[in-house]
């Protein structure tokens, strides 16, 4: 690996890189800004400009005839073939590339956004107006006035981007040759690149680039040890894109939680970059599909909020807030939170007994408006901020946007915090994990090579939820009180177990690919016991999940098989044959359930304290009874 710093000197300060920041009303284009409004040069623009130059250099010098923009196109004589990419594709990546056997990455260049060298420097903006002149009246054409917001001309801007050139191959000799060649090509492209972004014909985007190779930033100080389980607080340093199971149309949306697969991928790719032999046993044990560590989902959180497994993640389906004055976090509580699980159980029990009750908990206790399930996450007051960036392939012949090659990506904005955990870490892999979490540059989600999803990880001691027996005791006491208030009698309450999904539960499927279970059968098997499990109540919604692998090169094009799933937040209430099921429940909490548990799917919490915390008080009573 060769690390470098790339400096951009924009002495005129006239940069016009659009499509990265939200346009304000009335402005046609806005210069690229970071989450705090400071100008930056997105890595995509930087890589595009360098690639354009490198392609021209390689072609002009007669070294080879690279393809155009990684699309394998460029007419006859193009040296880029599937499995034998041209030099430009080896460095910058190509469309549809996968990591083959003996390879470590599909492209060698990792390059992040270029940010201001002096981040505190004040900058003045200016609005550039442009107008089309109607030829007949020789006056401004109606509806053809544009305003572009950018840095005011005349103020020098200096940016710095950090990057590295990766070893592409496991073979050390081949990798050494590749590293030297790619460093050479990058140096040449940097020297010859003079413009970034749009408007070069109008004198915009003129830059001087310089490249400096530096030592690896990895700190070789002592690494704190990690134990069997760690809790992670993760700060996004650059915007992140985490693929939805099914992308829709031309806008690639991001999911707002981080699946365990993305976390494991970040750790795995981070370590694979620096390990001499990535096939070494201790590393493989850490990321193994069957016996490796258990990488939970990371959920968005407010940094100042208290964490832990019962304080993060999705709201249970049974937790509601007022439709008129919804709960938006502790600072905007609206009419507060209500959990209706005890009331739902009362309704189910009364219904089974052929009785009617009149609870009033489907209405807001303050204003009597309807209640609705809460969307979002427990640890966060509002949805994480996102931004939509546009990317376009430049046509090499006319220098404009390539037809049919404009993509929009939704990204989670930098500055967002997440929390999650890695559990059941094999002893052999702990040193590797500690090194990755404390010292290596990790990236979550897609776009690692263009600097997306860079994170800073803080490792914290694991927080355990209250003991299971205590949670059960509190819940059952709350349920008994509520049933009594509603006049519902029930035997065998001590056999009730309440399970909520902290992450999606992948459902088993039959030979035709359709789900054969809604989660109840799998949970019943896991609960085991002497007799059949009966289900008192379920509140669950369905979706589907699907992963993507860089290493897969089969006909599916890297896309993994899909699963139907019960969504995170679903609640299942079972009645066990006997009251001695605590051991099974504890095991279920620790190991999860269903396929792909190592990637955080199927995580279960029994007797979630939230059910008791927000259950109605006795004063709220049965309402206007019959």
């Amino acid at each position, binding site marked *: 690996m060769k690390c470098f710093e790339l400096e951009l000197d924009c002495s005129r300060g006239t940069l016009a890189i659009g499509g990265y920041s939200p346009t304000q009303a009335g402005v046609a284009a806005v210069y690229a800004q970071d989450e705090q409004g400071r100008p930056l040069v997105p890595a995509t623009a930087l890589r595009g400009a360098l690639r354009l130059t490198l392609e021209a250099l390689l072609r002009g010098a007669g070294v080879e005839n690279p393809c155009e923009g990684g699309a394998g196109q460029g007419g006859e004589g193009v040296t880029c073939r599937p499995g034998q990419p041209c030099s430009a594709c080896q460095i910058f990546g190509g469309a549809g590339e996968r990591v083959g056997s003996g390879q470590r990455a599909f492209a060698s260049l990792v390059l992040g956004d270029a940010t201001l060298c002096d981040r505190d420097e004040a900058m003045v903006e200016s609005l550039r107006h442009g107008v089309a002149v109607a030829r007949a009246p020789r006056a401004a054409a109606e509806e053809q006035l544009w305003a572009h917001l950018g840095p005011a001309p005349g103020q020098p801007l200096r940016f710095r981007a950090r990057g590295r050139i990766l070893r592409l191959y496991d073979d050390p000799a081949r990798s050494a040759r590749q590293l030297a060649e790619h460093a050479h090509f990058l140096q040449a492209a940097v020297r010859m690149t003079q413009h970034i972004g749009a408007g070069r014909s109008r004198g915009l985007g003129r830059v001087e680039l310089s490249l400096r190779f530096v030592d690896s930033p990895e700190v070789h100080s002592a690494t704190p040890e990690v134990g069997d389980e760690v809790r992670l607080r993760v700060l996004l340093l650059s915007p992140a894109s985490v693929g939805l199971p099914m992308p829709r149309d031309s806008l690639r949306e991001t999911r707002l939680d981080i699946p365990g697969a993305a976390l494991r991928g970040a750790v795995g790719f981070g370590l694979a970059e620096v390990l001499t032999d990535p096939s070494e046993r201790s590393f493989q044990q850490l990321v193994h599909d069957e016996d490796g560590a258990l990488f939970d989902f990371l959920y968005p959180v407010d940094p100042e909020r208290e964490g832990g497994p019962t304080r993060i993640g999705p709201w249970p389906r049974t937790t509601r807030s007022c439709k008129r004055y919804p709960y938006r976090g502790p600072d905007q509580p609206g009419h507060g939170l209500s959990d209706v699980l005890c009331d739902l159980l009362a309704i189910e029990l009364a219904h089974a007994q052929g009785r*009617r009750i009149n609870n009033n908990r489907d209405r807001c206790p303050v204003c009597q408006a309807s209640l609705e399930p809460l969307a979002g996450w427990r640890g966060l007051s509002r949805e994480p901020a996102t931004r939509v960036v546009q990317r376009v392939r430049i046509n090499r012949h006319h220098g404009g946007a390539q037809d049919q090659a404009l993509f929009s990506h939704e990204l989670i904005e930098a500055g967002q915090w997440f929390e999650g955990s890695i559990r059941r870490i094999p002893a052999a892999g702990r040193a590797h994990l500690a090194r990755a979490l404390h010292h290596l540059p990790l990236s979550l989600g897609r776009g690692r090579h263009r600097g997306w999803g860079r994170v800073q990880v803080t490792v914290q001691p694991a927080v355990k939820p209250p003991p299971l027996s205590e949670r059960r005791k509190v819940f059952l006491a709350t349920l008994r009180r509520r049933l009594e208030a509603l006049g519902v009698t029930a035997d065998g309450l001590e056999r009730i177990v309440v399970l909520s999904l902290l992450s999606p539960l992948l459902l088993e499927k039959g030979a035709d*690919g359709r789900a054969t279970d809604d989660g109840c059968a799998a949970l019943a098997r896991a609960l085991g016991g002497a007799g059949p499990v009966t289900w008192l109540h379920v509140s669950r919604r369905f979706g589907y999940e699907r992963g993507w692998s860089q290493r897969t090169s089969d006909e*599916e094009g890297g896309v993994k098989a899909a699963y139907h799933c019960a969504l995170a937040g*679903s609640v299942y209430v079972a009645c066990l044959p006997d009251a001695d099921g605590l051991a099974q429940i504890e095991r279920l909490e620790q190991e999860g359930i269903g396929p792909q548990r190592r990637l955080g799917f199927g995580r279960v919490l029994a007797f979630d304290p939230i059910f008791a915390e927000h259950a109605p008080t006795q004063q709220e009573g049965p309402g206007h009874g019959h």
Partner: protein
Amino acid sequence: MTTASSIDLGALRTRIERLRSAVGQDGALIAYAVAGVQRLIFLSSRQVAIRNASQLVQAFDRWVAENHSLSVVFARGGRGLLLARTDQSARIQGELRAHFDKQTEDASLSLTQVPYDPSAEADCLRWLWRVAEARKDQAPLPRAPLPRKTGMGLCANCHIRDGTLSPLGYIPDPTPEMTICSACVKLLGREGRHNSHLAELAPHGALACLSADGNNMGQLFEDLPDLPAVAAVSQAVGQTFERAVAAMREALPADQRARGIVPSSTGGDDVRLFFSPRQLEALVGALSRTVDQGLQAAQRGLAPLGLKQRLDRVGIGVGVLISPYKSHALRQLDLAHEAERQAKRLCHEPEGPRSAAQLIILSGQDAVHDDSSQGPPLPLDHDRAGSWAHLLRSARALTCVQTSQRAAMRQAGRQLRGEERVLANLFCAQLARVKEWQRYFDAIQVDWRDRTEVEAHMPTERTYALAQLLQREAS
């Protein structure tokens, strides 16, 4: 068309009485609801898929009404209520589920049954809604197969599942490898060859998405005292909203009525609609007018059932999103639905209006984060300042002001946010010298010589955005 006031209460009472006597003391109330109806309707952004999924839900309601006429109390909007003998209820539920599953694989039917006690009908009804609400997250998993992969071989309609069947003429000029999935055949089979995408409604790049829903309907239904009241209110509300959609279609120019809007109304109290922003004023006007008239007629017509006061607070919340057409239909609908909720919150305020609307204009897919062009929701009930009608009139009047003047004042408004006095000074200076600004205030019936009035009625960011949109759409 039948109006709510023309509901034959006598016939309705007779029908319900026949149901009651048929079940005697041994009856059961059965409620059904289509689970995941929005996902079913907006699975694809193609007009034919949206229309047909809506029609599928309506057809199912009709099938229930026709084939279980001896049991049905109402069947509308993907929801229904039946009263049947206990020994027949299992058979009826099985038939409902089987028929629904035959229609589509992309949604499932939620069924709830409670015992019927003729001496406590209101309690039984309330209990039924309560149990149905408690079990709404228990509908079975839809049977549609999983999406397998991206790229070649996907269904040419939904682009999610494997295409396994030949296109049967639904796709113009299909290539040999183009196929559609069995679930989509069921959707597409009803309307033939209409293949338009929603983009056709957006010749200037902007598409309007409307989400409207009755206000306080849940509370109204839950409090209804007996089966005749449930049947009558369901019929009145359903007819009112059906009429509203018909009136919206009538409000379009004659040549656009067939294809100008893509309604997804399923016969209940909700309307989901895609249309060209050019039709904004006509469509929202027709919707609110017709719903208002329908509800007033219902109040009169249902007075003998003692429901007049219950209908007093019922109105409509309307959310309109105008955004680039490239977003997926479901995403646009989500934002329009959020706008609808904001409008409804205004109605729920003390002394709030019966009906309100919220308009959100997004200039780009990213502009959702720029909320400066959004204003508060607006009452639909009156025509005074701060109402929906006033916003539209102001925007229309603003299109007559030079674009350079508008651009300059809009820019000033953004730059001087928080410095209202300075902005007002600047604005008044322009007003004094530019006749078009004076005509603007004349058009919205504000005395432009009165500085206080001018300050209160200066165009907002949303008015500028709407004016720009209206002008572009009219060009």
